[in-house]
């Protein structure tokens, strides 16, 4: 998977036609063969752009920043990224007419150890679902939607006895340092003032305790329930390497099994599962 040439051509053409102010893509980080996101404002810098299977980050996150707000933006999205873009459009966070989206029919990206990432192995929607221009083989969305399977880690952990799960997650929450990188790296955590930061509230506190980390991470994962697209930006950003995907994938599997037969962001104008209801929702857990 290498679309470097095509993306450079597209960016150069967009700048020449005056269609965009800034192009969000990937560049080499300058030290090794890993990549970092780049915001290109000068057409001469277009040659910096690359796209290979090391292009791991979700660039939709950069639509929250001042560099792109109220500007015309060109953007590269993979399958999962395009789903988060779809949700941001549905939730009126960005305007579609300000965007030029280069969609990728993604074949999966690799981590720093050159292993294919777990979410790419389990990927359900690999083609971009929202785009102006689509690169790569594929292009028919119905062909790219694969059957949904419960995440292997979630299934393995759910099969364990309660005491083991308790001990496991206590260690996870103990290791959290409350840097909030997971929140900042998430494209769908766009609130200007996060409820976790409200200093006057006694409900949340910034203290770096296991209890506070438990509260913050649980609240965060429940705010993303039915919206998380499994791009794993949070896990890549986490300095403690917490298995944050466990919380999201657990919520996702419950929602998929009980409420809806599609994942978040696949259908345009479809809001998260918590914004809807059905009379047939399960009721057997309520007395």
């Amino acid at each position, binding site marked *: 998977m290498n679309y470097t040439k095509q993306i450079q051509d597209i960016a150069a053409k967009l700048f020449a036609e005056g269609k965009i102010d800034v192009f969000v893509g990937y560049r080499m980080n300058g030290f090794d063969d890993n990549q970092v996101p780049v915001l290109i404002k000068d057409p001469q810098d277009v040659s910096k752009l690359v796209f290979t299977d090391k292009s791991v980050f979700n660039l939709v996150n950069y639509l929250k920043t001042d560099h792109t707000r109220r500007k015309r933006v060109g953007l590269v999205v993979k399958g999962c990224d395009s789903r988060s873009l779809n949700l941001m459009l549905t939730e009126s966070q960005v305007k579609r007419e300000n965007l030029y989206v280069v969609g990728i029919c993604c074949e999966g990206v690799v981590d720093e150890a050159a292993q294919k990432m777990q979410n790419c192995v389990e990927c359900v929607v690999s083609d971009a679902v929202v785009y102006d221009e689509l690169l790569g083989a594929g292009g028919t969305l119905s062909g790219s939607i694969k059957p949904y399977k419960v995440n292997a880690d979630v299934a393995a*952990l759910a099969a364990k006895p309660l005491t083991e799960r*308790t001990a496991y997650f206590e260690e996870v929450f103990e290791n959290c340092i409350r840097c909030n990188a997971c929140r900042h790296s998430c494209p769908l955590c766009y609130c200007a003032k996060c409820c976790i930061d409200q200093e006057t509230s006694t409900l949340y506190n910034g203290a770096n305790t296991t209890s506070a980390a438990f*509260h913050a991470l*649980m609240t965060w994962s429940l705010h993303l329930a039915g919206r998380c697209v499994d791009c794993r930006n949070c896990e890549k950003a986490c300095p403690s390497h917490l298995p944050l995907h466990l919380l999201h994938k657990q*919520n996702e599997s419950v929602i998929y099994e009980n409420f809806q037969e599609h994942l978040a962001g696949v259908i345009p104008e479809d809001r998260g599962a918590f914004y809807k209801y059905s009379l047939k929702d399960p009721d057997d857990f309520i007395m």
Partner: protein
Amino acid sequence: METEVKDQLVSIEKPELVAVPNWEPVIMGILCNWCSYAGSDLTGTSRIQYPPNIRIIRVPCSSRVDPWFLIKSLQTTADGVLVSGCHPGDCHYITGNYYARRRFLVTKKLLNFVGFHENRIQFSWVSAAEGPKFAQVVAKVTEDIKKLGPLHLYKKENFEKK
């Protein structure tokens, strides 16, 4: 109803921790104003006995219950939570409890996944006319939670090392 709790009651999530002698569970009851709170009022005015372990908070609707109400309750004092609202179709705000029902299922499964016993988070539909049912629900929840022992997770009081 049994009121005596035997000594050395073990916490189900962490068997190495035991309850203090004569431990009684604290249950957070979050009740909707229009049905369950009126139902609990009827229980009282009908002079029906129910366990005093429940601490009741009134909310406008069961969909007012943000999942972090449950998280925060379990994290501070409560050993269990009971959320109660109107029966489906009876909501004062027409659809509130349908939205709440979805959130409750996901919250319950997530809390169970991270290591809380599923009986610590309970839900019920109680209408304003169901005074006896409210007493039964509270009795059952209290009994369930007494079996589970005290909740130790993410709080460090009420415990003695074995």
